[in-house]
């Protein structure tokens, strides 16, 4: 996305709030995400009139209505398609995609795959509440096996898809994870996502108080967060539990392990290299509660974005060709019928 501009006139979080009544259930994690986004936008130096929020259908996809920006609440699963058109038509715009685990990974999984592999310059915020909220609580592709819901009264059978693992397999070049209530860290993640040129994929664990309340509690609760979350940072050793524990890579089994950090000796702890895809894969799939849940920017390895490649090719192909439409109409072999005839 655009470099954070310094010159743009400053905005306040309120400038980013639309006049629409927010219609989520009281207590829904979506509120916290909305707040974090509205708080972060001024810091990015973004402009409301140059910002477009595109969403699909779901509780989460109501998001654009609450942002005082351009917004498009499209149809279920298709936000990536619409966003692609918006961005290609006007690459100057900042494009944000808001989607849910159902919207983005069930019906919309294919568009997500292709958006990521094409590396369209945009930010994807996937609100993962592991449930279909808007349609009243059916299990979703991220629901854990055994989830009981109206469509799985005996417990769901499918193994869930791991959003970040999927994104990695799809070829995404920026993958991050955060939590609805992480009001301090989420803005940092959002800033990184915005600054990354290309598709930035951000999974946000979001609590659905009505249909899946507390499903992330085990690692999102504030009081145990130090033990259950690890916030990784490029170039820094991977520590958690206030620096008393770290992640170690066993070079024989090729698997991660949790190790004690004694007296600040981090020599056994691996340093986060956000360009290392193999380690990113391991971080993403660390089993909980044996391991903490990794948060922050897990993988970032920029490559040319789709819109940028298109712009470059256009310059190359078009060059200073003159677009003479009448000449185009006459291209190929033609003949003249004379008036006398």
């Amino acid at each position, binding site marked *: 996305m655009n470099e954070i501009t310094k010159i743009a006139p400053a905005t306040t979080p309120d400038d980013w709030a639309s006049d629409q009544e927010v219609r989520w259930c009281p207590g829904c994690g979506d509120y916290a995400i909305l707040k974090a986004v509205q708080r972060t936008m001024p810091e990015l130096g973004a402009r409301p009139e140059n910002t477009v929020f595109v969403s699909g259908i779901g509780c989460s996809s109501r998001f654009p209505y609450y942002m005082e920006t351009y917004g498009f609440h499209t149809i279920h699963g298709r936000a990536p398609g619409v966003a692609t058109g*918006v961005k290609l038509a006007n690459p100057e715009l900042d494009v944000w995609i808001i989607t849910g685990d159902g919207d983005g990974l069930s019906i919309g999984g294919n568009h997500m795959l292709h958006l990521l592999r094409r590396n369209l310059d945009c930010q994807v915020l996937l609100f993962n509440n592991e449930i279909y909220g808007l349609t009243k609580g059916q299990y979703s592709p991220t629901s854990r096996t055994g989830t009981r819901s109206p469509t799985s009264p005996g417990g769901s059978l499918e193994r869930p898809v791991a959003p970040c693992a999927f994104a990695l397999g799809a070829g995404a070049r920026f993958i991050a994870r955060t939590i609805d209530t992480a009001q301090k860290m989420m803005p940092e993640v959002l800033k990184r996502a915005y600054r990354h040129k290309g598709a930035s994929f951000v999974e946000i664990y979001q609590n659905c108080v009505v249909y899946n309340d507390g499903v992330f509690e085990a690692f999102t609760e504030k009081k145990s967060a130090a033990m259950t979350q690890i916030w990784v940072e490029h170039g820094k050793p991977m520590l958690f539990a206030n620096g008393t524990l770290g992640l170690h890579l066993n070079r024989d089994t090729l698997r991660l392990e949790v190790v004690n950090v004694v007296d600040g000796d981090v020599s056994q702890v691996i340093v986060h290299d956000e360009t290392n895809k193999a380690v990113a894969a391991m971080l993403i799939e660390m089993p909980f509660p044996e391991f903490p849940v990794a948060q922050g920017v897990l993988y970032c390895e920029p490559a040319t974005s789709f819109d940028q490649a298109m712009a470059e090719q256009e310059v190359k192909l078009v060059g200073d060709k003159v677009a003479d439409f009448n000449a185009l109409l006459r291209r190929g072999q033609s003949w003249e019928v004379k008036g006398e005839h």
Partner: protein
Amino acid sequence: MATAVQAPEGDESRMTAGEARRESVVVRFAGDSGDGMQLTGGQFTLSTALAGNDLATFPDFPAEIRAPQGTLFGVSAFQIHFGSSRVDTAGDEPDVLVAMNPAALKTNLPSLRKGGLLIVDTGAFGERNLQKAHYEANPLNDGSLAPFQLLAFDISKLTLESVKEFGLGNKDALRCKNMWTLGLSLWMFGRKRGPIIDWLKIKFGKNELLREANIAALNAGHAYGETAELAGPVKQFRLAPADAEPGLYRTVTGADALALGLVAGAKLSGLPMFFGGYPITPASAILHALARLREFDVTTFQAEDEIAAICATIGAAYAGNLAVTSSSGPGIALKSEAMGLAVMTELPLVIVNSQRGGPSTGLPTKTEQSDLYQAVYGRNGDTPMPVIAARSPSDCFDVAIEACRLALAFMTPVMLLTDGYIANAAEPWKVPDAHDYVPFPVQFHEEMPETGKLNPYLRDHETLKRVWVKPGTPGLMHRIGGIEKSYDTGNIDYSAENHQKMTDTRKAKIEGVARYIPAQTVEEGPEKGALVVVGWGSTYGPIRQAVSHVRAAGHDVAHIHIRYLWPFPANLGDLLKSYDRVLVPEMNTGQLKTLLRDQFLVDAKSLNKVSGQPFRISEIEAAIMEMLNQ
């Protein structure tokens, strides 16, 4: 050299020099997919056009990319009808059939006119090819070809001889057969070889060997005609050039004309074009053509599927582009849900459907008009959308411009129907001048509302079109979407009165299009009378011819051809009611018929053909006569 030459049995007229009086001739080239029949046909078309004849073509190829040699399903054919007067169809039945192998003979012979000329390459009539074509006996010898004038000789061998000097491998050498045949054909109709040689030079560019070999084969075929070896039926024909308005002409296929028309529409509106597509036969050709036109401010996007294609298009429309998506029946079906979004958000969009044989995957390379229902009715909810159709290859240009105009004038998706026949067929086209078209420049809405809050559903009182606000415009931030919105504010609104009002408004807006389109005219014949034949799309040619013939025989028949299928022109109902009978020939099971009966309560009767093949003139003539005699 054994050249079997045979005159037809019975008293069928011979295709002799005397026949040069005929106003038009239909020639069909048929061979293996690998024989290059489409190329042969294309170049013969060019030479026909350059000779000043009017023409229409009908390429008819298999669904297989390159079916195994010699098989029945691997036969590829190209038919051309040309003449010294107006030509509207590719012809009911060929006068000349060139059959490059037994399979081509078997599948194409049934359409050859009795007494017509049959040219056959005996070199391809070996045991194996006969077997593959499921011939028990060699038809060249068993008398079964008696009703035709047969000219059978070893084109393969003649070709090999003609290119011997270039030392090509046998396979490559045999590939020159089509040029040899083309050379002979050029001779038959007194055509110049120059333009074809020019084309060969471009085509083979650096590959000197192939270039020279092909030219040699072409020349050899031509020379063969000139030598005295052809006794009997084959003579040279000379058709006078057709009467045509003065001007610059080229040949154009429907797909090309459509692509050019879209570019013209974008230029006339002053907008960049965004085209989102996903390959599908026979729609891909439009995407291919546009992909080469970057310098005309055209962005093409090959999406992951048809849904993504239309959605990207909707996004581009939201962002202020002239947005177009295109597909064929199955892909259009996939787009149905998103079309609803475009209707609901009232964004301008052109949706092109190059119809093909259905249902389902159907007959991908065959033509049909069976997506009219889908175009008019194929969406959930009350979701009206204008639908217009092209009648011929060159007509695609004007219809594409018109689709752009309507989409922008009413902020609505517009469905443009064409079909596989039009897409692939070629006809001479008097090249228009872009300056002759009236521009329809777009004004984006930029005015700050007095209330401080934009209502994106603010409307023009006349057309009911809503404002178009480009993201990036300061102060006019707004949200749109697929949920029902308030007429007054554009915010979500589920209230009963509002939904009724918005439904009524959407309906009124599209019905109102009728006030901005030309009145329906009568193509030929009187404005009232005993019978009117009503058509749409690519049945234009055969209907026109059939009506002409029947009128020439003194019958009271008229022809109406409808471009604006939804809404209909305001005068159409009255017009139809002024005839005693209404006949609707369609390449479907009666879809326009449904619209007409519903809208005007006229007792329209169907003539249906759903075989993957265009109508023959004679079929329509017969139906007219039957109806007149009822």
